[in-house]
């Protein structure tokens, strides 16, 4: 517990957390605007001709549960990236500022240090999720009412999506810690993390659709293996036809987080600090 307290104190006594908090605000507002427009369009059936093969998916996305889940988890796309970067920084700043020597002198039990770092990053991620969710509850109710669907705050799907969103925040921060251990360079880890997150989402989606066109539809199911796609699948409010089930997204993401955390911890145990 002392160790987690110390790790949280490390975060609190530098400016990183509030700078990232400040960055999150405009990104949240941006996605809020997009989600509002999208919800408005879907709710009013206002998007021209739809190719026949996408009709099913559109219909699923139009369901009230899906719309509500989407607006109440607003900000997720960038929020997950932010907490992943915070997770990265929790580790890499120790190497960047050469404080890792002091850290391991204070506590030679390195596994304990790594677990404390994972816990601290997770606490931070949950805080980010909590604040974002408070904003979303106000914003979401506003949007849902504006399209005459009611706030939907009584719907189980909304709270399930919100909770899964929290889990996603937690898991991405753990992933970030893992990346930070594997790539000690602060810049290297940050760039890799962002590429994995943004490039992973866009690049893998494109690659998979090309491969699917060539080898058959079953390849589409592989997109669940891409971390960012797995997490968006996990928090989607309803099962979307043609997509893998939501629990698969959760399993994949938990798998990545556990593997990253474990490899990170084991690596740190053996590493010479010089």
């Amino acid at each position, binding site marked *: 517990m*002392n*160790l987690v*307290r*110390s*790790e949280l*104190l*490390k975060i609190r*006594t*530098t*400016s*990183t957390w509030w700078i990232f908090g400040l960055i999150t605000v405009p990104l949240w507002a941006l996605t809020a605007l997009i989600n509002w427009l999208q919800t408005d369009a879907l709710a009013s059936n206002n998007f021209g001709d739809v190719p026949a093969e996408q009709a099913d998916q559109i219909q699923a996305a139009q369901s009230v549960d899906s719309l509500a889940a989407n607006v109440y988890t607003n900000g997720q796309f960038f929020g997950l990236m932010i907490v992943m970067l915070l997770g990265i920084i929790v580790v890499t*700043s120790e190497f960047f*500022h*050469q*404080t890792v*020597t*002091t*850290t*391991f*002198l*204070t*506590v*030679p*039990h390195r596994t304990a240090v790594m677990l404390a770092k994972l816990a601290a990053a997770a606490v931070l991620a949950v805080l980010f999720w909590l604040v974002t969710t408070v904003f979303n509850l106000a914003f979401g109710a506003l949007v849902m009412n504006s399209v005459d669907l009611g706030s939907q705050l009584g719907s189980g799907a909304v709270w399930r999506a919100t909770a899964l969103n929290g889990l996603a925040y937690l898991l991405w921060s753990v992933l970030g810690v893992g990346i930070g251990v594997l790539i000690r360079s602060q810049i290297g880890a940050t760039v890799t993390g962002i590429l994995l997150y943004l490039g992973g989402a866009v690049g893998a989606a494109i690659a998979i659709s090309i491969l699917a066109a060539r080898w058959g539809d079953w390849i589409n199911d592989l997109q669940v293996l891409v971390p960012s796609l797995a997490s968006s699948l996990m928090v989607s409010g309803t099962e979307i036809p043609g997509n893998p089930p939501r629990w698969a997204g959760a399993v994949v993401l938990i798998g990545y987080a556990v593997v990253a955390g474990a490899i990170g911890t084991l690596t740190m145990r*053996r590493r*010479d*600090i*010089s």
Partner: protein
Amino acid sequence: MSDGQWSPSTGQIVVSGLTKQYKNVRAVDNLSFTVESGRVTGFLGPNGAGKTTTLRMLLNLVTPTGGTATIGGRRYADLTDPLRHVGAVLEASSAHKGRTGINHLRVICAAAGLPRSRADEALALVGLTPAAKRKFKGYSLGMKQRLGIAAAMLGNPQVLILDEPANGLDPEGIRWMRGFLKGLAHEGRTVLVSSHLLSEMQLLADDVVIIAAGKLIRQGPVEQVLGSMAQGGRVRVRTPQAEELTVALREQSATVETDEHGLLLVSGVDAPAIGRVALAAKVELHELTPERPDLERVFLELTAGKAGIR
């Protein structure tokens, strides 16, 4: 002293057969030495001799290829509450640049389970209280060193290990450090200080451990290490009658050389003997100075040919 629960023997450092093999270089090679409590021990060697690697193995930061290093009979990794037994100062720049000095210490206190008040006390101990709330990036090199020492003193340890603590200190800072470390040793603590500043070490250290190319060259009290090299000690003589004195001295089978300033460098006889010879020969003397061997010369002779860069 408030750390009376440690017996003096717990502060002994024992390095035994310690070896570190990196890919292409054996940084530390079967190194053995001991460091006693109540004394300041200087850990000397040319750059690249393996001093830092040795200290890092002692502190469980680097895993040895072979051998052991213990503090008070235990490996660092096996100490419960290591900060209450051992304080270490390794790099000057080992704090987050955006964190204040006092917060740096509080973070360590939290992790070590020490009361928060220790942070203020340690800062006062090194005279940094006025800069407590300044960020680390605004600290001078000397202040950074002092903060490092404050961090090492948080747990009021019996053993202090410092890697090149005089680096970047101004003369006043070096004098402060000397007094501080001597004071700690006087209280019965173990103080191990690595350095390549030999003149400073001569003033500070009671014992020295000299290594080169990862191997032990010499270990012992400073006087003893100096004494072992003192046989070749010379006496510097200034006289207006150099030729007459040279002849007279050579009759006593002394070796006499003349330096570029016309001074005589005499070996083989001691200063009183030279004085008697001069008196008998009615030679006027202006200066008669035995050359004291200093640590620097001894060090250079001992480590000659064992280049630091391997």
